[in-house]
């Protein structure tokens, strides 16, 4: 399937934002990624689902530029980005907020680290944070915020860094289910309003199907793409849609692949 997308890309029929081709990597003799290929269209929301040990995090580190893979290419709008950090947004399960910086100062961290945050950065960040429900907490230290609020700040930091493509690695896995639902809603709102391209790793199949345009099922030993499923469910997806036959059908397919 990845090959098909690559074919389309070469022939200019579809605007691919991110293009991963034949990615292979091993740690010593242990193969972690084997011939991974897929593309992500501009503005698309793609979820990667897989059991732990299937190479999701390695794949993420490769795309983010932290890890140089043995072979294969990663292109962001035709620019090769293997081993080049700082081209895509990145968010983890750990919020990684700096305890000594307020919510606002954490949101402008990208600017602070590259050239120093100016008044415009701060004003823009404050506006962004207020729009997404952090208005009352701009000057709070992370210690004084709940887990959900902290992840909200981390998400705002990722957005404020200004990259079109955002990689999210199980960002809501540590939250309770109600907070996670709120955060999923928030993320979809961000996605549709800010027109970002999102690659989202999760091991929660329901979460993947609620969020994604397409779900990439990864299989372990070595990590490889099992199948790519299109999620045709209509948006906005209400919680009730989790009980719909179409949803159940997709879930059954993913489960069958994962537990094959």
């Amino acid at each position, binding site marked *: 399937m990845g090959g098909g997308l690559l074919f389309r890309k070469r022939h200019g029929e579809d605007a691919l934002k991110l293009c991963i081709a034949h990615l292979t990597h091993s740690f010593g003799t242990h193969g972690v990624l084997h011939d991974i290929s897929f593309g992500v269209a501009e503005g698309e929301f793609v979820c990667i689902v897989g059991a732990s040990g299937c190479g999701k995090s390695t794949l993420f580190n490769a795309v983010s530029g932290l890890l140089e893979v043995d072979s294969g290419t990663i292109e962001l709008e035709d620019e090769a980005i293997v081993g080049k*950090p700082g081209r*895509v947004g990145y968010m*983890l399960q750990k919020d990684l907020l700096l305890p000594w910086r307020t919510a606002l100062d954490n949101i402008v961290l*990208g600017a602070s*680290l*590259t050239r120093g945050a100016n008044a415009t950065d701060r004003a823009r960040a404050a506006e962004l944070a207020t729009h997404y429900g952090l208005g009352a907490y701009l000057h709070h230290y992370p210690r*004084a915020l709940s887990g959900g609020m902290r992840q909200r700040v981390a998400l705002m930091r990722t957005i404020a860094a200004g990259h079109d493509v955002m990689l999210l690695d199980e960002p809501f896995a540590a939250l309770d289910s109600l907070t996670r639902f709120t955060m999923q809603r928030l993320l979809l709102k961000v996605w549709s309003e800010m027109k970002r391209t999102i690659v989202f790793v999760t091991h929660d199949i329901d979460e993947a199907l609620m969020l994604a345009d397409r779900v990439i099922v990864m299989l372990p030993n070595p990590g490889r793409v099992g199948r790519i499923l299109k999620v045709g469910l209509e948006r906005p997806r209400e919680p009730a849609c989790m009980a719909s036959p179409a949803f159940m059908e997709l879930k059954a397919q993913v489960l069958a692949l994962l537990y094959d």
Partner: protein
Amino acid sequence: MRRPILVQTFFWTAAMLLILSVWQAAVVALQIPPFVVPKPAAVIDVLLGNGPMIAKLMWQTLKETLGGYVIGAAVGFFLAVGMSQIPLMGRLVYPALVTSQAVPIVGIAAPLVIIFGFGMMPKLIIVAWIVFFPVVVNVMDGLAQVDADQVNLARLLGGTSLRTFLIVKLPACIGPLFSGLKIGATYAVTGAVIGEWTASSRMGLGTFLLSANAQMNTPGVYAAMLLMTLIGVGSFVTLLVIEYIATPWRHRSTSPGHEAARTD
């Protein structure tokens, strides 16, 4: 604890008064003669009765202690930063640092006096010698323990190495830095006194203690000891206050200047 500083002040004062009370009570109850252990009240009388002279002695020792302390803290901090940023330097210098602390401090004093004479310099060096070590060790540990994910995030945000160091790594070792500074603060005065004992052209608390001892002036000996202790405790408490002010995120829920309810 709505006013942690007030509460702390109360406990510190109470502890000091308790120590003096136990001392006074022990001398009275055990009927210890004043030329062996004087009552604290008598020692305080000596201090108050010789105000200007005592102040001069105190100032001399305080100058040596503070000067050496600042030098030692600065050297320790910058050494730690250098050693953690340049691994080769770290590997070479670390054994030398440990060796420096294995040399008995009294053993260093004599050569320093031979090299630098009877003035301030040997005292400053001895104090700095004692102070820099806990600072180096703590700051290096702090820098080594900065969360690797945090540093990766800084790289992914495109951070320059200098800014990443200043914004992400340095604040992360502020706790260890103050631990090192506090340990150094209580030891620093010992260095100044040893320096004065070895050779001195000016009287400080250390030289005064020696001459009072030689003259069987027991209250004088205790007065000097009390003031040396005061310098150590005073430095420690000052550092506690500076640390409290420098780390608002530990005890406030919002940044200073933006009011919200205190959380402690």
